[in-house]
Structures are given as structure tokens and as C-alpha cells.
């Protein structure tokens, strides 16, 4: 590693004279509630302890052994369902009301509570374990001048700790010194933000001089900085030391969770510890998503409650009547219980009694079963081999377990392009140098062009690099200065880090794959980037090692869309190299480039239309004077404490002017495997796909064509690229008019539709007059909405009314819409969004290009708001997070761009093509299973419970149950739970290949056909019908029946057992009919449930049990009875 001669300006720490007095003893009060600023003094534990900063011990666990029970129970009872059952339990403890023993409620409730508690406890146990493991990691702390081993949890704010290579950073540290020159060190932030490239951190120069532990022991600087926050890329603080003040930025910080790389050792001062670290501050809870079935279920449960109350009221009224007419006279045999003195009070109590016995219409096991089923489906997604990518060794992952069935209802997919549709593996494909274009299309049919062999020319070439145009290499060999300058730029202007394991074996680590591709291209053409230090870049230019001093790096960001470096070559000439998006760069060229610019622009357009990603390259020579002046300027901007970003941007802007154009590069981003097929299948499934990309329009459209979203057979592709509100409105309206026109000519027109259209047109006209001149007024939504405003200044156009008209829905034919970011901004405004939604939703495919992350989210929100459809967003980068979070379902592609998107997502996998399997197979099955499950579940509980209602009319509305209480307790948790769970988890209607072959099978989910209010009522009706049969047939059969011994059968016990047995059999037959896919498990569960019913029934009726508990098990002995008489 070469010793740097110079350190670039931006890495200089700002040394300012002490401007304000140190307030050494002006410590803050001890309260830690709202920390306004943080003061940390190195090596002074007493001082720091006054502030009571959090220690480095992290606690992610929620409970300990003592608090577990109360805290967990408290949390569980915050669930409405659990509280409801607790309320029922309390009701049951009142003897006058209790129609059922308390255990009928407490057994299921306890079961549910304990299952949840066990799950929470295991989760927490693992959290404890990982906490312990992390807290007990060893680190070396400088205590009283010597390094001592300490556990992480004992590290305090203000301690100086030593880190070694490949160690995890224990807390948020201020880098003080490092074993590398200039106090540099390298970190990998994969755990923090998922980026696997290395980043550089540098210590403040004064502390980097301190070096080893001996000097650091006497370091007593004080840091004043912002309070703990969750911004990973920002830090703002000041170091006060030896009467001087040094500004601290994120560049000086090592955050917890990073790993030290390529650095032997470094020392850092603990600023934030434990829960205050940025890593922990970022681990917030994500927003909880609910599915539409969830919401429907909640509504239905509320309705059922209403129904329950109604039944309760009916029966209570019945009770009042009965007690008045019969019960009061019957008192000689059955007097009223003491508090009851009139029939009204009795009716009141009977209402509550019936609420208790009828509560099984909403069984507690419903919610638990739903969760279990979803968990099962999630596991099936995780286990799916066909969604496993062997290249990146990642299996699909259902990160949220509560959304599975919604995967079967998706109507809109919002997809990112780069990294999602494409591989995000960049290949340097073409370039234009000085008006000359190089590079052939690599995958041309016919003659396969020869792949170039770089090795004889350049031993350092990357053997994996492909290029097919010899002319370019010739041009380099010939020594064309422009060409050489072109590649020199590529080898210098970047932020790539290199690693040289052995001589000639270079590995580049780039933040973006584009950069990597460009640097690799330069390497193969003889301009090899070898290594960098903060002040130098060393390259090998056609075999000759050259070291440039790096004067400044003008960073890339999304607004600037370009980056520059300023370097001084060995000859002492200063040059600025700039690469960036053509739109911004071409504006900043020297006027003499006019001719070259037009040729290059042509090339750029050509590249873009091939779907390539383009960059323009330029340079500028700087005189020593210019450089001095600007660097002063820049330094000033860098020091500024307020608006630093803006000032820096202005400073950059200042120097990136009058540049000389070198040429342009074109990088190919290959489509991922199977993307066109996937998109074709998904659109056959009636899923609309919107691509939201930051790329430019041409690139986006081309990707659209290459992945079959747009096809030549399409009726029309509309492009919206207006810059003003009016033009966008006009373009949108025109698009829709054309659509209607075309579909009318196709369909032959519909008279009725025309009439309606005319009507609306008239109305629109009337409306328009009132609004004359106020074209941009935001207004409510109405029939005349789109007639207002618009570009139609002169003429009032007559467009059909919005979706309320059947006419509009009739649009047939394939349309596509391409909209630009700046037009989208207008289209998303309040008064135009309906128009935009109408137009866009009539199209088969929509491509939004040049969109910002925020716009991506806005588009998703727009569709959610206007369409009531299930949306799915899929993306891989940090810019997709907002979209992923706002869609109903977020899918993260674990690809090249780190894992932030995955962390924010609900499902993740590594290839776009897995989406078809996720939706058409897993989603479809999940939806189907969940719907069948819910239908059956409501059915079986109504069949079970409504029998009590009918019996009420024959037992004086006394809330006597039909079944014995053990049956009621066990019905939902033993006798009928498992078969329906098995169906909910394993059922399949068609094999997986079929649902991929016939995507139309997906439609019932989108139309919400399998479980909706209608289906619910059908289930309920069937359940009630079953209950009628179950009650009245035994009633009619048993009322006069006697055994063959002459003993009558119409006793309560016989009736109860007969009805219960019939119920279990009927319900089992029903599940057998509903199950379409009988695996071994289904067989075991169905037969097992029936078996368990009979086993338990015989056990409960046994004499032994009666002898032990005569009062509880008084339902003795049907079997013994029959046996004794009939068997002998």
C-alpha cells in the first residue's frame, strides 16, 4: 500500500478554534427522560455515570421468569376474543346464570392461552439466549492504561475499546485511532443495512496520532453530540479536547453491528451503548398488516355476536312468557331461585344464560385455528424447493405468517425493474467514444461473434469479462488519446474498493454493480485500477503503474445523478473526471462540444432503445489557480454546520461546468430468468402488472417489450410525458378517448352506452360552464369530474363518464400506458388522480419511469384507495421499501442490492419468476383452503349451537343444554378441530401444474368468490338446517319410543347422547365431503376424531368414573345397561 501524499479535502477534519467555553461542570440533571444532547468524556467513568446513560447490555427479551405469567397474560387479555371469553367465564361463576359449568369455557380458554404462552415463552427463551450470547461477547477495554477483557454488557459509555480485524463492533464508537495509516479503517455494514461492500471510516486526525493504548489512556476529550436516534447515515457531534473543537460526522463513527475488515486493530470511544445504539434504535416493530379475509372475518364475528344477542333476546322473551304462564304455576314443583321473584328478572338472567351456552357460535378456537393454518401455509412456502434458488442458496421465506390467503387475491402487481425484473448484474456492453460507437449486440442470432481474449494484451484482465468488438482494443493499442482518456476516467472516477489477494488477482468491491462493470471494463482495456488510499489512486495503465493523487471526490447522489473526481497526475496536471446521467451531464458541457454531443446523444438514444443503461463521461482540465480557489470554497462549504449538504452541492455544481465530452457507456442489465413467461402467466391470471422504475422512458419501454409486458400485438401504447398539469390531463383524456373509440369499433358499439355517454356529456357541459377558467381547481369527484380543467380551453370535449358507466367498463383490447415521473407527479395530484386511475386501470400494462421512491408508494396507495383491490409490490432495493410497506403484500427480492427490501417485506425470494408460484400455487391454495376452512367452521358451530335454541322451546327457555357439558367442552377442541385443520392445511383442488397451466383458475380469488357474505350465509343456513334436523328428528323419534324392554327412551341422557353422536357423525361426513384431497393425515384425523368421540363417550359413561365422581359424571352407563340386558 502506497503512503498517501495527500489526503482529500473531504476527509480532513474541520479544526475550528474554540469558540465557546467548555461547560465542563455544567452537567445535565440526572433525569434521562428526554436527552437533548449527549456528553461523553473519554476515560472518565465517574463523569459519564452522572448522566445515567444506558449500559451496553441489550435486552430484547420481554419477560423474565417472574414477570412472564402476569405480563404475558396481560398482553393476551388485550385481545378482544380472550377478554370476551374471560367475561363469559365470570358470567358462568354466577350460579343463577351459569347454564354450563365453568370448565366448558376455561378448558378451551386455558388451552388457547397456554398455547400462545408456550409460543411466547419459546420465542423469549431464544431472545434471552441470543441476548446472553451477545452480551457476553468479549471485548478489550482500556481501563486505567491497560487493556482488559470485558464482556460486552459491561462496556460503558466513555470507555475506549480495542477492536481487531473481523470483530463485531460492540457499541456505537467514535473511531479514535487505527493500525492503518491516517486513522483509516474499513467496515462491512451487512448486518446494519445489508450492503456487503466495505466502507471507509477515518478518525479525527488529532486522535489518530495518539496511536496505541499508552497514549489513549490519557486521552480525556469530551464529545458532545446528538441524542440517540435511528438515522444510520447521519451523526453530528463535536469533540472538545485540549481547548480545541473538532467536528464529528458519520465518517468518524463505527456503528454497532458492523464488522471490522482489512484493519488490524482500531480504538474507539463508546458514544452510544446498548439500546441507544443506532442498530437497536432501528429495530422497531413493523406495521401490522391484515388481510381482507381477516377484516371480513371480524365483521362476520360481529354479526354473529349480533345474531347471538338476538337469539338471546328471543329466548329471554320466551322465558318471560313461559315463567309467567307456566313457570309461576309450576312453582309447587320447582320454585324460583331466591333472588328471582318475578318472571322479568328470570328472563333477564336467562338472557345471560343463553349468551353463555350459545357463545359457541363464535368459538375461541376459530382464531387459533386460523393462525395455525396460516403458519402451516407459511412453512410450505419456506419449504418449497421450486422456489429455491440454488445459485444464491436462498429459499423463499414467508416473513409474515398472516397474509397467505391474500396471495390468492392479488389484482395488481407493482414491480421494480432493476434487480427485480432484471438480474442487476451489469455487463459493459457498448460504448461511444468521441462519436464512434463500439460493441456489438452479444446475443445476435446467426454468426456468433468471437469473444475477445484480453490476456495476451493485459495480464491483469478479468477472464470473465466479455466483449465482442476488436476495434475498441485496437483503438487502445493504437494509442488513441480520447479512447485512453475514456478508460482512464473509468479507472479513476468511482468509489470501488479493490482487494489484491496475490499479484494480479484483483477483486473489486463496488457499491453499485454499474460501477463494478465500468471499472472492470477499464481493467480489461488496460487501465487497471489497483488500489486506493484516501489520497491516491494507483492504476496500471497499459502495463505502466501510475499513481494519481486524489484531490477530491464529488459524491454521487440521486439529485446530482453524477459523480466526479479531481485528480493530479504524476506530471502535476489537475483534471476533473465526471460521469453521470446524460440529462444532467450534457447540460454542463463546454459549448464547443456541440457536434460531438449531438452524435453522442444519438448513440445514447440508440443504446437506451436497446434497453441499456447509459452514462455520459466528461472531463475538465483545471488550472492550479482554479483548483486552489475552488478547494477553498469547498472547504468552507464542508465546514458549514447548517445546510451543509446544499452548500456542498452548490460547490460541486460550480466546478462541474464547461466539461469536455468523452463519450458514453452502455451497460446491459440482463433480464432475469423466466421473467417474460412469468409476466405472461400472471397477466393471463388477470393480474395487472405495473412497472415502477427509476430508469428512463426508453429503457423502461424496452424492458417492457423484452419481458413481454408490451407486445407488438397491443392495440396501442400510450405515452404520457407532459410537463404541465394541463398537458398531462389532456394526454390522459386522449388516451382514454382512443381506448373507447377503438373498443367501440371492435365491439360494434352499444346504443345504450352511447345514450348514457351523451347524457353524461350534457351534464359535463353544464358543469364546465360554471367552472370556466378555473381549470386546475381541485374538486370533488363527480360525474363531470374529467370535463373540468384539462387542456380543452377552446373546446369542451365530451368524454364518457367515469367507471359508473358500463360503457367504460367495456373497454376491450390491449392497451398499455407509459408515464414519466414528472407527469406522474401531476397525475397524482388530488384532482387528477381519479382520471389517472381510470385510464391506467383500463390498460393491461402500465410503466411508470423516472419515479422516486415516494411516488412508488403513492401509486400503490392510489390504487389501494380507488380500486379496493389487493396489491402486491415487489422490489429489491432500498428505494422500493416505501412501496413494499404500503402495498397489501410486499415481496422482497434478495438480490444484489442488499437486504433492506427483504427486511421490509412480507415474503422474500431471489428470483422474480418465483412470483408466479407464490401467487398461482401457494396463494391460490391458501385462499382456497382458508375459505373452505371458514365455511366449514361456521357451519359446524352453527349446527352445534342452534340445537340449544330449538331445545329452548321445549325446556321452558331455561337454558338447559342439549348435550352434556363434557361434550360441549370437547366438541371444538377435540372432536371436530383436527379434520378441519387438516383440510385447511393440506387441501388441494387441482395439482400445482394445473394452476400454472390454467392461470384463469386464479380468478375466483380476485373476485372474492369462495368466501364472502353470501357464502357465509349459505354456510350459516346449512348449519341451521342441520341443527333443525339434529333436534327434531331425535325429538320425534324418541318422544314415544321405548326400548324392547319397555323402558321409555325419552329421557334426557338418551336424548343428549343421541343428538351429540348424530352431530359428530354428520359434521364428520360433511368434512369428508368438503375434503378434496385425502392424505394420510386427513384419514387419521377424520377417523381419529370419530374414534376419539366414541372412546371418550364410553369412558365418560363408565362406572369407574362415576364411582369416583358421582356428582360430575352422572351420565352413567348406557353401555353397561345395554350389555347387562341384551348380552346376558
Amino acid at each position, binding site marked *: *500500500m502506497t503512503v498517501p501524499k495527500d489526503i482529500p479535502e473531504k476527509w480532513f477534519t474541520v479544526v475550528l478554534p474554540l469558540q465557546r467555553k467548555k461547560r465542563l461542570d455544567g452537567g445535565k440533571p440526572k433525569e434521562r427522560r428526554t436527552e437533548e444532547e449527549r456528553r461523553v468524556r473519554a476515560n472518565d467513568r465517574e463523569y459519564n455515570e452522572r448522566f445515567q446513560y444506558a449500559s451496553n447490555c441489550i435486552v430484547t427479551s420481554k419477560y423474565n421468569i417472574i414477570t412472564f405469567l402476569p405480563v404475558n397474560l396481560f398482553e393476551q387479555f388485550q385481545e378482544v376474543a380472550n377478554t370476551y371469553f374471560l367475561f363469559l367465564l365470570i358470567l358462568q361463576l354466577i350460579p343463577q346464570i351459569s*347454564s354450563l359449568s365453568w370448565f366448558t369455557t376455561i378448558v378451551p380458554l386455558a388451552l388457547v392461552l397456554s398455547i400462545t404462552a408456550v409460543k411466547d415463552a419459546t420465542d423469549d427463551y431464544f431472545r434471552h439466549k441470543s441476548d446472553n450470547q451477545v452480551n457476553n461477547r468479549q471485548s478489550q477495554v482500556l481501563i486505567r492504561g491497560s487493556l482488559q477483557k470485558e464482556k460486552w454488557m459491561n462496556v460503558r459509555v466513555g470507555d475506549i475499546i480495542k477492536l481487531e480485524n*473481523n470483530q463485531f463492533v460492540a457499541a456505537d464508537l467514535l473511531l479514535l485511532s487505527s493500525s492503518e495509516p491516517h486513522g483509516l479503517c474499513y467496515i462491512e455494514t451487512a448486518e446494519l443495512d445489508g450492503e456487503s461492500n466495505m466502507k471507509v471510516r477515518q478518525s479525527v486526525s488529532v486522535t489518530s496520532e495518539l496511536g496505541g493504548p499508552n497514549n489513549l489512556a490519557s486521552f480525556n476529550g469530551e464529545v458532545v453530540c446528538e441524542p440517540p436516534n435511528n438515522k444510520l447515515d447521519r451523526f453530528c457531534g463535536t469533540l472538545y479536547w485540549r481547548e480545541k473543537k473538532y467536528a464529528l460526522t458519520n465518517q468518524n463513527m463505527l456503528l454497532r453491528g458492523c464488522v471490522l475488515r*482489512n484493519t488490524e486493530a482500531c480504538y474507539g470511544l463508546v458514544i452510544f451503548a446498548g439500546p441507544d445504539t443506532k442498530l437497536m434504535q432501528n429495530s422497531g416493530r413493523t406495521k401490522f398488516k391484515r388481510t381482507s379475509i381477516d377484516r371480513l372475518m371480524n365483521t362476520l364475528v360481529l354479526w354473529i355476536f349480533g345474531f347471538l344477542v338476538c337469539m338471546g333476546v328471543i329466548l329471554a322473551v320466551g322465558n318471560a312468557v313461559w315463567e309467567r304462564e*307456566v313457570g309461576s304455576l*309450576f312453582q*309447587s*314443583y*320447582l320454585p324460583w*331461585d331466591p333472588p328471582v321473584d318475578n318472571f322479568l328478572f328470570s328472563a333477564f338472567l336467562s338472557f345471560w344464560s343463553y349468551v353463555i351456552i350459545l357463545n359457541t357460535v363464535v368459538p375461541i378456537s376459530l382464531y387459533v385455528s386460523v393462525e395455525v393454518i396460516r403458519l402451516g401455509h407459511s412453512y*410450505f412456502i*419456506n*419449504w418449497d*424447493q421450486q422456489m429455491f434458488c*440454488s*445459485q444464491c*442458496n*436462498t429459499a423463499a421465506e414467508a416473513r409474515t405468517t398472516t397474509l397467505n390467503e391474500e396471495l390468492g387475491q392479488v389484482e395488481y402487481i407493482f414491480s421494480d425493474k432493476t434487480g427485480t425484473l432484471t*438480474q442487476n*448484474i*451489469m455487463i*459493459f456492453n457498448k460504448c461511444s467514444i468521441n462519436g464512434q460507437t463500439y460493441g456489438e449486440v452479444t446475443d445476435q442470432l446467426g454468426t456468433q461473434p468471437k469473444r475477445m481474449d484480453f490476456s495476451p494484451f493485459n495480464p491483469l484482465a*478479468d477472464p*470473465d*469479462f*466479455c466483449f465482442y468488438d476488436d476495434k475498441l482494443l485496437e483503438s487502445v493499442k493504437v494509442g488513441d488519446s480520447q479512447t485512453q482518456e475514456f478508460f482512464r476516467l473509468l479507472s479513476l472516477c468511482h468509489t470501488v*474498493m479493490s*482487494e489484491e489477494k496475490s499479484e494480479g488477482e484483483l*477483486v473489486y468491491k463496488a457499491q*453499485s*454493480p454499474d460501477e*463494478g462493470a465500468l471499472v472492470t471494463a477499464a481493467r480489461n482495456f488496460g487501465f487497471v485500477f489497483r488500489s486506493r488510499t484516501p489520497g491516491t489512486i494507483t492504476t496500471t495503465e497499459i502495463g505502466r503503474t501510475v499513481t494519481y493523487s486524489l484531490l477530491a471526490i464529488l459524491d454521487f447522489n440521486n439529485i446530482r445523478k453524477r459523480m466526479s473526481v479531481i485528480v493530479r497526475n504524476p506530471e502535476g496536471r489537475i483534471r476533473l473526471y465526471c460521469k453521470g446521467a446524460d440529462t444532467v451531464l450534457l447540460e454542463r458541457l463546454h459549448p464547443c462540444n456541440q457536434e460531438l454531443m449531438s452524435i453522442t446523444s444519438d448513440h445514447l438514444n440508440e443504446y437506451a432503445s436497446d434497453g441499456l443503461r447509459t452514462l455520459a463521461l466528461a472531463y475538465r482540465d483545471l488550472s492550479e489557480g482554479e483548483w486552489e480557489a475552488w478547494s477553498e470554497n469547498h472547504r468552507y462549504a464542508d465546514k458549514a454546520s447548517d445546510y451543509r449538504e446544499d452548500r456542498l452541492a452548490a460547490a460541486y455544481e460550480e466546478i462541474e461546468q464547461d466539461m469536455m465530452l468523452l463519450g458514453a457507456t452502455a451497460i446491459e442489465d440482463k433480464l432475469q430468468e423466466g421473467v417474460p413467461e412469468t409476466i405472461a402467466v400472471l397477466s393471463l391470471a388477470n393480474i395487472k402488472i405495473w412497472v415502477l422504475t427509476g430508469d428512463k422512458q426508453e429503457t423502461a419501454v424496452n424492458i417492457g417489450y423484452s419481458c413481454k409486458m408490451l407486445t407488438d400485438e397491443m392495440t396501442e401504447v400510450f405515452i404520457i410525458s407532459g410537463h404541465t398539469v394541463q398537458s398531462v390531463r389532456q394526454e390522459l383524456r386522449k388516451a382514454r378517448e382512443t381506448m373507447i373509440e377503438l373498443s367501440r369499433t371492435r365491439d360494434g358499439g352499444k346504443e345504450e352506452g352511447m345514450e348514457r355517454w351523451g347524457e353524461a356529456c350534457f351534464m359535463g357541459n353544464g358543469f364546465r360552464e360554471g367552472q370556466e377558467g378555473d381549470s386546475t381547481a381541485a374538486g370533488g369527484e363527480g360525474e363531470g369530474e374529467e370535463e373540468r380543467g384539462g387542456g380543452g380551453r377552446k373546446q369542451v370535449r365530451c368524454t364518457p363518464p367515469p367507471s359508473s358507466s358500463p360503457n367504460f367498463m367495456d373497454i376491450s383490447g390491449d392497451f398499455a400506458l407509459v408515464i414519466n415521473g414528472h407527469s406522474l407527479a401531476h397525475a397524482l395530484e388530488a384532482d387528477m388522480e381519479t382520471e389517472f386511475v381510470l385510464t391506467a386501470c383500463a390498460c393491461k400494462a402500465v410503466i411508470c419511469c423516472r419515479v422516486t421512491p415516494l411516488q412508488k408508494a403513492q401509486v400503490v396507495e392510489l390504487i389501494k384507495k380507488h380500486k379496493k383491490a389487493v396489491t402486491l409490490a415487489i422490489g429489491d432495493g432500498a428505494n422500493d421499501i416505501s412501496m413494499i410497506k404500503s402495498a397489501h403484500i410486499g415481496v422482497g427480492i434478495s438480490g*444484489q442490492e442488499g437486504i433492506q427490501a427483504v427486511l421490509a417485506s412480507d415474503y422474500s425470494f431471489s428470483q422474480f419468476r418465483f412470483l408466479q408460484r407464490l401467487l398461482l400455487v401457494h396463494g391460490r*391454495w391458501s385462499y382456497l383452503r382458508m375459505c373452505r376452512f371458514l365455511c366449514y367452521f361456521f357451519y359446524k358451530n352453527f349446527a352445534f349451537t342452534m340445537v340449544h335454541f330449538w331445545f329452548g322451546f*321445549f325446556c*321452558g327457555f331455561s337454558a338447559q343444554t342439549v348435550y352434556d357439558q363434557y361434550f360441549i367442552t370437547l366438541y371444538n377442541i377435540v372432536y371436530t378441530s383436527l379434520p378441519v385443520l387438516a383440510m385447511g392445511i393440506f387441501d*388441494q383442488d*387441482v395439482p400445482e401444474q394445473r394452476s400454472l397451466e390454467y392461470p384463469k383458475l386464479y380468478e375466483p380469488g380476485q373476485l372474492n368468490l369462495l368466501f364472502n357474505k353470501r357464502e357465509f350465509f349459505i354456510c350459516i343456513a346449512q348449519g341451521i338446517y342441520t341443527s333443525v334436523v339434529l333436534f327434531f328428528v331425535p325429538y320425534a*323419534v324418541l318422544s*314415544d319410543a*321405548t*326400548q*324392547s324392554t*319397555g*323402558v*321409555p327412551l*325419552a*329421557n*334426557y341422557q338418551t336424548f343428549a347422547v343421541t343428538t351429540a353422536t348424530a352431530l359428530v357423525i354428520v359434521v364428520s361426513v360433511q368434512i369428508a365431503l368438503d375434503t*378434496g384431497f385425502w*392424505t394420510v393425515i386427513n384419514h387419521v384425523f377424520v377417523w381419529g376424531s370419530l374414534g376419539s368421540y366414541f372412546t371418550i363417550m364410553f369412558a365418560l359413561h363408565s362406572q369407574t368414573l*362415576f*364411582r369416583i365422581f*358421582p356428582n360430575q359424571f352422572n351420565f*352413567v*352407563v*348406557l353401555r*353397561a345397561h345395554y350389555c*347387562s*340386558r341384551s348380552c346376558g
Partner: protein
Amino acid sequence: MMASSYNAKEEDAHHSGASSHGGAGAVKSKKPDNTAFKQQRLPAWQPILTAGTVLPAFFVIGLIFIPIGIGLFVTSNNIKEFEIDYTGVKTDSPCYSCAKNVSWNNTTPCVCSMDFTLEQPFENNVYMYYGLSNFYQNHRRYVKSRDDSQLNGDLSALKEPSKECEPYRKSEGLPIAPCGAIANSLFNDTLELFHIDSNGTRNPVPLVKQGIAWWTDKNVKFRNPGANSNLTIAFQGTTKPVNWRRPVYELDPLNSDNNGFINEDFIVWMRTAALPTFRKLYRIISKKSGSNPTLSSGRYVLDVTYNYPVLSFDGRKRMILSTISWMGGKNPFLGIAYITVGSICFFLGVVLLIIHHKYDTRNNSPDIPN
């Protein structure tokens, strides 16, 4: 710079650029197991309901149910049953005056006689039932008002009956045996049957009062407290239910096997009915030896010792005589139900068959293979 342990993700080797290859260690494959369970490929039977399976099922059900129904119906019709209401609601009823005057604390028994004629002789064993209507033995408070421990001979429950028995738990400080509303309302009419022969003499029909309860009730559920030697002593310290005339140990003083809690009339009453109109077995008239019918046709007199008041709540009392077949007593509903279900199935089968033949245009429709 020095090497680091950098695990590059394995990418296609042809792509250059960013996907640089570091020391890609042997990463453990996370590939999910290829088991039938995890891949949702468990072998399964997928029943698909087609006309070929459903139609035969309908016909088979129909063809099985209809004969069963006919058999049951015929059997039921052959059973002879006679029923007489002796509540005494109407003024011309012999029991009218008794019904008027009856009350629980009446000490002088009121006897009334009902004449009736059997048109047909009753063969084999004849069973005599009493029936009550509008009597809510299935009322929740009534059903639970008993103490099974006490009835099972538990001594502690005898002295300290369960709270469920309230308000018939204790009387004047002494525990009631048997406690509870069910026991308290024990049916206490006495029914006697006389045959009037041709010369007008009343011949008593012998009534068997044992063997009328469920075997398990008699032998398992109900037991007398103590060693069953002397019931008077065993029940010492308890009192009779409020409505009773005699204490429990005097229900059948002559027969120790039928006294106390194991008195069969008591046991029969304690097995609560499911519906407000019910009948309970009262006595059995055993078949006579020889070819004489058990009850020959002719005139009979039913002597009722009228103790049990039901008119206050508009109840009814009946006496029923019935013969029994293999399927039990008279029960026309069962046969009708079988016939109805069978006919509906058969009818549906025919209708569906017609529809199937008429409208089935799918020839060789793609059967979804398993």
C-alpha cells in the same frame, strides 16, 4: 490490502463486474428437503363426485331405506296401545272431584275409578305407563336439583347434601334424603287395574313393580347408605322430602330390595325426561302361561289413588297400556322417516339420472388426473 473472509454469492461465472469471486467457502445448502410432505406431494386420494358415483349412491340409499321403513312402520302398527287420561279436568270425569281437592298435605286418600274397554286382546308382556304432560322435567333448575352422591349412598352427602338441591336441601335443620326438586316431586299416584269379567266381578290384574328401572340405575347409580341392613337407622338424622307422605325408607317396607334409594318407582322418576310430555314405566303385566292373552279384550277398571296435583299448572296425567315388539313401543315416526328419506333419495336419483342423460354433453371431458 489483505485478504478477508469474503463470501461472494455464487453467480453465473460469465458475468463479470460486481460479482467478484472471493474465497467462496463451502456454504451449507439451504435447499429445502425434498420430502413429499414439505413439497405438498403427499399421496392423496382425490374423490371426485361424478354422476357415476353419486347416482348409484342415491339409489342404494333409497333401496335400503324404503324396506327398512316399511318394516318399521308395519311393526309399529302391529303394536297395541291403549291410553286413558285420568286428570279429571272435565266435570263428567270420575276423577273430577279428586282433582279439585287434591293437595300435597291431604292425608285422606282420594280414590277414583275409570272404566274403559279394550277392543283387542293384548298379547305377551303388557307394559303399563303413566304419562305426564306439560311437566318440565327438563328444566335446567329442575334437572340439576339432585345430589348423585347422596343417591349413591355416600354418607357425608346424606348428611350434607349438595347445594344444587336448594331449596329442598334441608328442612327444619335436618338434611332431606333424597334432596332436591326432582325427588321432592316424586309421582305418587297409585294405579290399580281390574278386569271386569262377564258376571261383573272385579278381578285384579297382577302388576309387577320390579324390573321397570334401568339396570345400571338400580345397580350402580342408586344405593342405600350404610350396609343396607336397617334403613330406618341408615336414614337416621335425615328427614323426608317436603311433599312426601312417607320417608324414603318406607317406600316399599316389605321388600328390602326395593326400598330406600333403590326403590324402582323412585329410580324411574329420578331419570329425568327430555321433553315436557313424557311417559314413565309404571308396572309390567306379565304374560300368562298358556294361550290366554295377557289382557283379554273386555271391560276394565282403573283405580286411581289420586295424590299428585297437576291441574295447577295445566298438566295432564295419563295411563298407557302397551305391548312391545323387537323395535320397542309404538313409534310410527321412525318408519315414516325411513320411508321419506328413502323415497326422496330415490326420487332425486331418478331426477338426476334424467338430467344426466339429457344434458350430459361432455364427451371425454378432461378428467383431472391425480
